[in-house]
């Protein structure tokens, strides 16, 4: 294990970027990184060297992020506005997509296009545009890979309600990424 006095310089920015891609609040991210580094410092003897130090620290940070989002979801339950906001309905005209909302072709090799830093920046903007609980549900389920039932428990909602939040998140992110990155309107 490396000297803890070098951890901030070696890992601070990468831990920060990981947290910031999942949590909107920079100050909260800094606090989570401090908790992560202190937890790593106190449990150095548990580090077996089976993974890289950074991977081990990201594992600790992920637990901190889970607890942070869980706490936030409990403190700020779904507002009436967020509950009723079913704007996805406007994407359909009867049984079919409207011409305006129909998903466009993302062109070339979208998986590869999604590996750029520009994509990360657009994604962050799109996540910030989501309502808080829709964003939290998506971060927990898709970004952190928390199981569906555990995610519903953490969010304090029944599984059926979580499915609605995740549907909204996917539909809104899909559209936002399409307009902002994969297939923008021609100038």
């Amino acid at each position, binding site marked *: 294990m490396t000297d*803890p*006095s070098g*951890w*901030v*310089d070696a890992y*601070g*920015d*990468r831990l*920060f*970027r*990981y947290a*910031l*891609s999942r949590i909107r609040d*920079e100050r909260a991210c*800094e606090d989570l*990184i*401090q908790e992560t*580094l*202190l937890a790593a*410092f106190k449990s150095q003897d548990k580090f077996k060297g089976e993974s890289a130090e950074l991977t081990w620290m*990201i594992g600790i940070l992920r637990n901190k992020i889970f607890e942070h989002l869980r706490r936030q979801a409990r403190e700020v339950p779904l507002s009436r506005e967020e509950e009723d906001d079913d704007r*996805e*309905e406007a*994407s*359909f005209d*009867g*049984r*079919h*997509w409207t011409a305006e909302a*129909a*998903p*466009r*072709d*993302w062109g070339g090799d*979208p*998986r590869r296009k*999604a*590996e750029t*830093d520009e*994509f*990360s*920046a657009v*994604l962050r903007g799109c996540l910030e545009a989501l309502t808080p609980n829709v964003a939290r549900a*998506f971060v927990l*389920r*898709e*970004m952190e*890979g928390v199981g*569906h039932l555990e995610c519903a428990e953490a969010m304090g909602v029944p599984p059926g309600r*979580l*499915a609605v939040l*995740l*549907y909204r998140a*996917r*539909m809104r*992110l*899909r559209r936002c*990424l*399409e307009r902002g990155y994969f297939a923008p309107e021609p100038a």
Partner: protein
Amino acid sequence: MSLLPSCRDVSRLLSEARDSGRPLGMSARIHLSICDVCRRVLAQFEILGRAVKRAPDAGASLSNEAKDRLRRALRP
């Protein structure tokens, strides 16, 4: 009246299938076989799910003030 689910229904079913891990029902699969737009949604949900797991390599960094605070917190 069509026996197949609508595009609205299929978009919801695609999202739910990602979470439940259960395969889509036959009627949704038939819909996908004849609907290019909903097939795009299926592909785009998958791309989205994959892409967001990657931590960004560049961009934001901790402020110097935050780094100083963290260094102080780590002093024995």
